[in-house]
């Protein structure tokens, strides 16, 4: 967004509570790799020219990418500046920070969708002897005592964390709710390549049937595996991860209860993946890619044992740690403008927030299916900076420190 604002000579400032790429520096586990391939992290004026286009960046490489880009575009970033409140004024917004206030005509909320790990309320019933971490503060298996680990959530984070902890030798139980299975490589190409080429990632928010639903959908169960292997539930079963259904609750006497819907959760996921692959195959056939790619194939169904356990005694001592990989929610506690709905979600139309001069960036399916990807920022910023510019046309004042 800064690059696009700069292209339009719009005077602006970026407020960053820590260093550039703060969350990548502070809220990621050690082994994480970006789940999109190197070639795909395109930013306005920047494309990948390294020698490993199909690889996946490590956390350090993602930090480097973002920091180098900020330097390349001379982004006016004020680091170690925490926004404490944003409120409306007669001419725009008053932005308070721990290092002075700003008066501006427009605000872009790019604080992310993953600020707070969304842990279910019954987590307070977990015995104190069990260590509890989230996908946000988990770092590596060495943090954990020896013994059993319950990983709750089987989307991208939960499956990767379950995999790594199981590989450390610990018994792992994975609680599986709704998730979307996806092969890392399909017909010889990265799944992201197909989704990019077939236009799936470019689908707009105003073209899908039910955008509220599309924004809620779990992220694909993809992992940036160095060997490009698929990390799905079958792969976890193969290394001895035990599957249970969605964690429904924990009783006062520390009995965890799992839903009996595991089979259906896996069936739904297999069916969804099938529809995505059908769409890719249809696109490949229509566009003459059948000759250039490997033949279509389908993955074997997700295996579920006949009667998965429905309960677990958390007081038995068998489980030493629980990792909550149950999703995130944004933190808008500093946003004192009435733009949140009754559930605390920011109301916007493709990133144009209901309060004039306020914009959003980088949330799930904000404007396009790729909006939450690094690769989605460019197109969204081009659109929204144009909208912002026309909004500013009635004014000549840039941001000023009061």
């Amino acid at each position, binding site marked *: 967004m800064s690059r696009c604002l700069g292209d339009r000579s719009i005077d602006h400032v970026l407020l960053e509570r820590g260093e550039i790429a703060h969350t990548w520096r502070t809220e990621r586990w050690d082994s994480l790799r970006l789940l999109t391939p190197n070639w795909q992290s395109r930013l306005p004026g920047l494309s990948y020219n390294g020698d490993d286009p199909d690889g996946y960046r490590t956390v350090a490489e993602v930090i480097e990418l973002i920091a180098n880009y900020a330097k390349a575009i001379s982004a006016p970033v004020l680091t170690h500046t925490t926004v404490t409140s944003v409120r409306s004024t007669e001419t725009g917004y008053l932005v308070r920070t721990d290092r002075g206030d700003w008066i501006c005509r427009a605000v872009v909320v790019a604080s992310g969708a993953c600020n707070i790990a969304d842990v279910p309320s019954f987590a307070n019933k977990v015995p104190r002897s069990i260590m509890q971490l989230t996908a946000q503060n988990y770092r590596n298996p060495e943090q954990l005592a020896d013994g059993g680990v319950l990983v709750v959530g089987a989307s991208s984070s939960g499956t990767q964390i379950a995999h790594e902890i199981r590989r450390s030798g610990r018994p792992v139980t994975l609680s599986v709710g709704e998730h979307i299975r996806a092969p890392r490589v399909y017909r010889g190409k990265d799944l992201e390549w197909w989704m990019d080429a077939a236009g799936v990632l470019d689908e707009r928010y105003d073209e899908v049937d039910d955008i509220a*639903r599309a924004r809620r959908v779990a992220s694909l169960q993809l992992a940036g595996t160095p060997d490009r292997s698929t990390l799905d539930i079958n792969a976890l079963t193969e290394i001895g991860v035990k599957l249970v259904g969605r964690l429904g609750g924990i009783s006062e006497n520390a009995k965890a209860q799992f839903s*009996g819907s595991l*089979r*259906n959760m896996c069936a739904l996921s297999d069916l969804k993946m099938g529809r995505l692959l059908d769409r890719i195959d249809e696109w490949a056939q229509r566009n003459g890619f059948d000759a250039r790619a490997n033949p279509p194939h389908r993955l074997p169904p997700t295996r579920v044992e006949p009667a998965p356990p429905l309960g677990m005694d958390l007081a038995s001592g068998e489980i030493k740690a629980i990792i909550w990989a149950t999703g995130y929610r944004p933190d808008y506690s500093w946003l004192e403008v009435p733009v949140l709905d009754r559930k605390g979600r920011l109301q916007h139309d493709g990133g144009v927030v209901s309060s004039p001069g306020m914009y959003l960036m980088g949330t799930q399916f904000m404007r396009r299916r790729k909006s939450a990807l690094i690769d989605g920022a460019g197109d969204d910023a081009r659109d929204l900076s144009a909208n912002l510019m026309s909004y500013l046309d009635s004014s000549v004042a840039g941001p000023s420190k009061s």
Partner: protein
Amino acid sequence: MVDAGSIANNGVNVAALIDAREALTEAPAGAQFKWRAACEWKNGTHSQSTVEGFYGLGQEQHHKRTFAFDADHPELFASEDKGATPVEYVLVGLASCLTAGIAAIAQYRNIQLRSVTATLEGDMDLQGILGIDNDVRNGFHGIKVTYKIDADAKREDIEALVAQSQKRSAVYDIVTNPTNVTVVVD
């Protein structure tokens, strides 16, 4: 309790139940039952389920006749209201199970029942099943069962009857604890 020496009569053959319990203790394979229902879609949200055969005591068994249950949605959901809603059948199942248990346990404890009535209420937020809010569950948020029991017993004995009935109720267990459900398409 009834006077010493007199025998309560709630119409439950406790002797037969005790015999069955002893027989099945000796031959646990006979205790393996399969309860069955069949369902046929009629039109709209109307379906008719039937119950006739079941399996138990090592062989196929049959009810005296086929019982039929129409289920539908009420007219305010633009349906034709040809039967109770499926969730009301869940309440019916829970009520019937707990009430049968109360009668049997009262008989066993020699408590004469004069009347037993129950009202049930399940709270549901339709934002769940309508897909309006993913944080709202589809099913009941809670079920309230209220019993009025007139019996020859002290209040605490009646309360103990109701508590024991919950402890031994199949439907109470089904609605309070998770169950693996396998749905296949032939």
